[in-house]
Structure formats: structure tokens, C-alpha cells
């Protein structure tokens, strides 16, 4: 039974002289779960791309259940029984769940090219119930939440009776509830004897699901072994190559009484109800809530992206009766949205253009709508890029889309920091980025708070909130449910408040 499902021997790959993988050896036993970790650029995605048939390997051999395996295209990998559940989901929003499940091979009427709709729906129902997703298979995928989409991806892998399922950062866009649902499904799969490779930056999750763990660094396999040999700290030190003493940096919390952001009875029917809170100078205020609890919607309303029907918003003691992004930016409010690809960055533009997008008016001659002072913008952006330690090529040319997730997030942050914000709203600032970058971002946030910026911090990582925030507000069903001071942090109590049903 303990046969090797996947045997990787001496795999190497280089791009134009850069060694991305160096003689990597890796075994995955059938029925087991391998947790694969490493920082961005460590070679995880190269390895996975080789397995998925996206790129070809330079040297070495792969055996899949004993057979030689050289995929030439993604379809080969699928045929060989390897299923990917990608970070950016490969689902078609315009099609229904059933269509997505069967897109490469529909059940057909015998000897005809026509799709057998009834059997498609029946089979889809079976698959959906096996991943515990109770939705009609005709539902268009674009209406699903990220968690539900993830489940559809898993159902798709199960439909193909894949021999190996590879999860690549599956939890980045999931809420706590969805995450536990996902783990329940993974557990179920493991019990059925499914071979799984699980890749994630959330090390606790990797520890939770894996049987064995492998760590990559700079294209080499640093260590591998059974889970029991690993702890979060060991994983981090293996990945980074040195010890990280402290995830969450400490900070003197001497709050000042001056409220920077005041929200009073903010209401928008169906979204948020009667929200009141204050954010003080030097404070990091966390908001915790499940996906759909209204936390992201709340800050979108504050920033003026969505409308509200009643309530008051005061920013730095100024009333903002009709907020709009432009007005808020003028009042030194900054907002790092939760999805940097869709709302944070211009992916085609250069790092510099992204960084100075908001501050063009400041660095211009002949008034705020005039000509751009190139010297000044170059200086400002280069300074910021250095300050945030953004790793990129020349910032005038390097496109944002060619940066790693962590660096992309730093660019978004830097763009807002250049506006010298008084209040900074962060919505999931560390989603999908590696440990090193996370620690750096935490440090930046702390520095800001110490300098007097008020920070509103939204996250679905409770650990992170408890590590970073002076105060945590809990939202559920569009209402504020509870408030915790740093001294009374209690994971269970916070979760309970977040899960509490309406009223």
C-alpha cells in the first residue's frame, strides 16, 4: 500500500541562466498528504508548473505511480490524473456549476455528440453533495462566494477521479467557516485514500493537514520529513534560512484620545446596520468577521465606493457628508483594498507608475492638473520603494504583474503611504503572501502607528489581528457584535461573537 505515487528525481530547471530548481528529489506516498512550503521564488511554483505540464524540465525524471511522466501540456497532466486547485481559480464565471464541472468532458447520450443534461445535473448533484455544497448545479458560478468556488474546484478534481490533487494556496480567500469546511472535505478525501499535495503560506494549516512536510529554498529541497518533526518555528527557519524571532513586532501602545475617524450609526439596508466606532491616533483597530459579515462592505462605504442611507462619518474632526474616494484622499484617508489585482494595481503599468498614481497632483508643475515633475516623482517613488524594500527591476520599467504577491502588496501600500495618510484602512493586507513579506508588512504597519497614523485593520486571520491590534471589533450580519481590548483577547470568545447568528 505504501507505494510511491509520485517520485521526483534530480529535477532541475533554469530560465535563461537562472537556476530555479536544483536537483530536487521528492517522494509522495500514495494516500498521503505532502505539505510543500517555501517563500516566493523558492521554486514551488516552478515545480508545480512542471508537474502541471505548463513548462518542460531541463533534467531529471518524474515517475507517476511507477510510470514515466513527461507532460507536454496541461491536458496531459489532467489525463495522467493530476488535478490542480489554483490560487486564482480556473473557473468560468459565465457558465453554470455543472458546466464548469464537466467542461472538458460532458456526459453524453450514447453515440451522439449531445450533452445528456439530466445525467449531467444528476452527477453534478452527487459531486456537489460530496463536497458539501448544497446549491442547484444550474447556478452561474459568478454568483458564488470564493469559498463555494473552491469547493466547485474540488468537486471538479473528484469528478476526474484524479490520482493526485494539488492545492495551491487554497485558503487565501476563505473565511474561517469556509476554511474549516474545506479542511473537513480534505479530511474526507484523506480518509478515502486520496494523495494530496498541499501548498500554503499559512503554516498552521500545513501542519494541520499534512502527513509529511517538504521545505524548498532557493530552488533546493532544504528539508523533508514527517509532520511530527516540524513546528511552525522550524518551518519558518527552514524556509527563511534564519530564525525569525517574532512574527508580530511589539509597539508602545500609548493611545491618544484624539479620534481620527468617527463613524456614527452608519446604515445601509441589507448591508450594514447601525455601526458606531471611533479610531484614535496611533491606534491599530482590528475588525474581525466572517466573509459576508459586512466588514469589507463597511470600509467600502466609509471610503465612498458604495452608498449609505443614514449615519455620519467624521474624518479628522471634519464631517464628510458625501464621501467619495477623491474627497477622502484629500482628507488623507487611505484604503488598501482586499483584492490587489482587481482594485489595487494597474497590472500592466510599471512599479513607478503604480506608486505615484495618487500623488501625481503633488508632484506636478502648473497646478495639480498640470505637468508631471518627473524628477520629483522619480525621487519620491524610489525612496518609497527603498523604504518598503520592494524587490523589483528598475521601477520605471518593471511591470507590476511581474512582481511576487508580497511585493505587489508592498507597491499598493507604498502608493497610499506616499499620500501621507492620517487614517489607513487595510483590508486583508497579508492575503496570499509569504512569511518574510508578511513580517515586513507588519513592521511597516507598526512604524506607521508609532508615527501617529490611525489604522483600521481587517483580516480573517484571527492570530494576525490579535498580534497586531490594540482593539478588535467583531462584526456579524452587518452589525457590530462585540469589542475586545488587547488585554481581554480570547480566541474562543471572538469566534463565538463572529459566529453568533442575527440578533
Amino acid at each position, binding site marked *: 500500500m505504501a507505494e510511491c505515487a509520485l517520485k521526483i528525481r534530480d529535477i532541475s530547471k533554469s530560465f535563461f541562466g537562472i537556476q530555479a530548481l536544483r536537483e530536487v528529489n521528492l517522494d509522495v506516498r500514495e494516500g498521503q498528504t505532502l505539505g510543500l512550503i517555501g517563500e516566493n521564488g523558492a521554486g514551488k511554483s516552478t515545480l508545480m508548473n512542471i508537474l502541471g505540464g505548463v513548462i518542460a524540465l531541463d533534467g531529471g525524471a518524474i515517475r507517476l505511480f511507477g510510470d514515466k511522466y513527461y507532460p507536454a501540456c496541461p491536458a496531459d497532466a489532467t489525463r495522467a490524473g493530476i488535478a490542480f486547485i489554483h490560487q486564482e481559480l480556473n473557473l468560468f464565471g459565465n457558465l453554470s456549476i455543472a458546466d464548469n464541472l464537466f467542461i472538458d468532458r460532458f456526459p453524453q447520450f450514447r453515440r451522439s455528440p449531445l450533452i445528456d443534461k439530466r445525467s449531467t445535473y444528476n452527477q453534478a448533484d452527487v459531486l456537489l453533495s460530496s463536497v458539501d455544497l448544497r446549491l442547484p448545479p444550474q447556478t452561474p458560478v459568478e454568483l458564488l462566494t470564493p469559498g463555494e468556488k473552491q469547493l466547485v474546484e474540488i468537486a471538479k478534481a473528484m469528478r476526474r477521479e484524479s490520482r493526485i490533487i494539488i492545492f495551491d494556496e487554497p485558503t487565501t480567500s476563505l473565511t474561517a467557516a469556509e476554511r474549516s469546511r474545506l479542511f473537513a472535505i480534505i479530511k474526507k478525501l484523506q480518509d478515502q485514500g486520496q494523495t494530496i499535495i498541499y501548498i500554503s503560506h499559512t503554516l498552521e494549516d500545513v501542519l494541520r493537514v499534512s502527513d509529511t512536510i517538504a521545505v524548498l529554498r532557493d530552488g533546493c529541497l532544504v528539508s523533508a520529513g514527517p509532520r511530527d518533526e516540524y513546528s511552525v518555528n522550524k518551518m519558518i527557519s527552514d524556509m527563511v534560512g534564519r530564525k525569525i524571532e517574532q512574527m508580530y513586532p511589539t509597539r508602545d501602545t500609548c493611545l491618544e484620545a484624539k479620534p481620527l475617524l468617527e463613524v456614527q450609526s452608519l446604515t445601509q439596508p441589507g448591508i450594514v446596520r447601525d455601526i458606531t466606532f471611533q479610531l484614535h491616533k496611533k491606534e491599530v483597530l482590528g475588525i474581525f468577521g466572517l466573509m459576508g459579515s459586512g466588514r469589507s462592505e463597511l470600509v467600502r462605504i466609509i471610503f465612498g465606493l458604495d452608498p449609505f442611507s443614514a449615519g455620519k462619518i467624521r474624518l479628522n474632526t471634519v464631517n464628510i457628508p458625501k464621501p467619495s474616494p477623491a474627497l477622502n484622499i484629500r482628507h488623507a484617508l487611505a484604503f488598501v483594498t482586499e483584492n490587489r489585482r482587481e482594485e489595487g494595481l494597474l497590472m500592466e503599468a510599471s512599479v513607478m507608475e503604480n506608486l505615484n498614481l495618487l500623488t501625481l497632483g503633488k508632484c506636478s508643475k502648473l497646478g495639480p*492638473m*498640470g*505637468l*508631471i515633475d518627473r524628477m520629483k516623482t522619480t525621487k519620491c517613488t524610489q525612496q518609497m520603494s527603498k523604504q518598503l524594500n520592494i524587490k523589483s527591476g528598475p521601477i520605471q520599467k518593471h511591470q507590476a504583474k511581474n512582481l511576487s504577491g508580497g511585493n505587489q502588496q508592498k507597491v499598493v501600500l507604498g502608493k497610499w503611504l506616499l499620500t501621507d495618510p492620517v487614517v489607513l484602512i487595510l483590508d486583508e493586507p497579508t492575503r496570499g503572501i509569504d512569511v518574510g513579506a508578511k513580517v515586513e508588512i507588519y513592521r511597516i504597519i507598526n512604524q506607521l502607528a508609532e508615527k501617529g497614523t490611525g489604522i483600521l485593520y481587517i483580516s480573517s486571520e484571527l492570530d494576525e489581528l490579535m498580534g497586531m491590534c490594540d482593539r478588535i471589533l467583531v462584526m456579524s450580519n452587518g452589525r457590530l457584535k462585540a469589542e475586545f481590548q488587547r488585554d481581554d483577547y480570547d480566541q474562543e470568545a471572538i469566534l463565538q461573537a463572529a459566529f453568533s447568528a442575527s440578533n
Partner: protein
Amino acid sequence: MKMYRILLRWPEKVVLSDHFVLVLTALYFLLIWAIYPHMAGHRNLANLLSNVWPLLALVIGQMFVLIVGGIDLSQTSIMAVTSVLGAMVMAMRFDPAKFQHNPLWGVIFSEQGGWLAGHSSAVPAAIFVMLAIGMGIGFLNGLAVAKLRMPPFMVTLVAMSFFSGLAIYLTRSENIMHLPASFIAIGKGAVGPIPSALLIVVSLAAVAFVILNRSVLGRWFYAVGQNIRTASVSGIPTDRVVILAYVFSGFCAGIGSILYSARLEAGRPTLGRNLLLDVIGAAVIGGISLFGGKGKVLWAVYGVLFFVVLDNSLNKMPIEFYSIDIIKGCVILMAALLDALRTRIAANQVIAVGAA
């Protein structure tokens, strides 16, 4: 081997640079020159350039709309309407036989000419009217696209059929002749050795260049085209930026209308009837993306040069009229193919740079 490499470095740079379309055009020009020596004669060159200016004005306007992720199919009909209205303001005489059944006869024009005929301000006023109307129509397009959230293709397609219909309706199919000589001079005259059309369009291009490359507004155009959601989160007034792009396109159509009308010495309701695909084709061949966010003034110039040189060269060939169409299509296809190959090579190089 080393020699070979050094020899290749320069052309490699050219092929991968922004100026590839220009290089292609130049090579094509040389090739045709070898076959038809008068291709490079100064009269032909003057001709060739005089054909560049009005088309370039249109393509620059189109580029702004393409950059914000739209498309403006109504440019040619804007030309028609403004041409007719401008002529109605300044024409010196209207032929009663042709115009007396016109609904506007006696209202804004009569046998004695247009609204301001003979007046010293007639030509400036007419130019003002043409540009203002062009911008007005652009504004309506922009409003429908930005505020009413209608698809640009349909909005401007409808505008195209509406305004070209309107232009024909206004004059009941007739062309308006007898434009003042000072207006016609815009199309043919010169300031010293420099043709006035060149002066106008080059300054237009310079303004466009400054706006796009050096101004805050320019960056906003690109930002809106690349990602409108990021742009709006960043506090950019996206609606106004989109509307502005269409207004500018209308303005450029107005300029084009002035130049073409002056060349043809008439206000024409069918002005530029089949020019639309040349305009968009030149923009796309130049490298301006139909999906928004990408475009440069230089690229527009290259695209226009390509089309104009192509047409000019076809005009040299003593072959049947249908063969000309076939050759024209094939040359466009070849240019596009070379460009596609080039993009793929350039993409590979970017990966190499990124990995380094």
C-alpha cells in the same frame, strides 16, 4: 560567431523596440522605391505627407478613446455633420436651385450665403462651430458610455448612423460649395515653406503627446483604460476622464473635418464615409490596443504612415482595380503577422529579464 552577434545586436534592438512599425514602413517604402523611382520624388513625398495630416488628426482622437477602453465609430459622421454646419456658417453663396427646398433655407442661410457670409469673423466662427459641435457630439457619446453605462461600440455605432443621417438631412444630399478662400487656404496654403495642415496637426500631436506623457490627466487616461476599478478606488474621476476622451475624439474629428473640407473645397454630408476602418486600422496596426490602456502618439503616427504609404504605393501600380484590394489586404495581414511574431519574441525576452 562574435561578429555575427555584434552585427545582429542593432537590428535586434530595432525589431524589439517601439519603432518596429516605422521600420516596416520604411523597408516597404524602400522596396516600392526600387520598383517605382518617383516614389521618393519630392512631389510624391509632399503628396504623401499631405495625406498623413488629416488622417493623423483622426487617429490621435481615436487613440484617446481606445486608451480608456472604448471605441469611437462616430468620428466620420462627426466629420460629416461639422463639415456641413461649418459650411452653412461661412459659405459665400447657396445655389437656390439646390437648396431652396431645404428646411433651413432663409433661416440660417440664403442665396446671399451662410449665416455670417462675407463677415470678417465668418471663418473663425465657422471653425469654432465645427470644433464645438464635434466636441458636443463627443460629449454625448461620453455621457452615454460613462453615465448610462452603455457599451461604447453600440453607442458610437448608433451615433454614426444618426449623425451621418443628420448631415444628409440638413443639406438634403447637396454639397455646399463657395467656401471662403481663407478657409480653403487651411487645406492647401502654407506658412512659409510649411503647409498649414502640417502645422495644425503637428501641434495637435504635440498637445496630445504632452497630455499623455507629461500631464496628470494623461496618466489618468491610461489608469482608467488599464483598470477602471483601481482608478476609481484611487480617487480618479473616472466618468469625467472617459467623457473627456470622447470629447477629445470629437475635437480631433472636428480638426479632421476642417482639413478634409478645406481640401475638397466644400461642406460635404458624406465626408469621410468610408474612412472609419482606415482610422481604426491605422491605430491598431500602430500598436494601440483595442482593449484599452495602451497607446502612444508615436504609434499613431507610425500606423498612419503605414496606411498612407501603403495606399500611395498601390496608386503607383498599373494593375486592375481588384488586384489592388487583394494586395492591400495581404500587406496588412503580413504586417500584422510580423508584428505578432515580434510580440511573441519580445514576450520571451521579458521573461528572461524577469527571471534575471
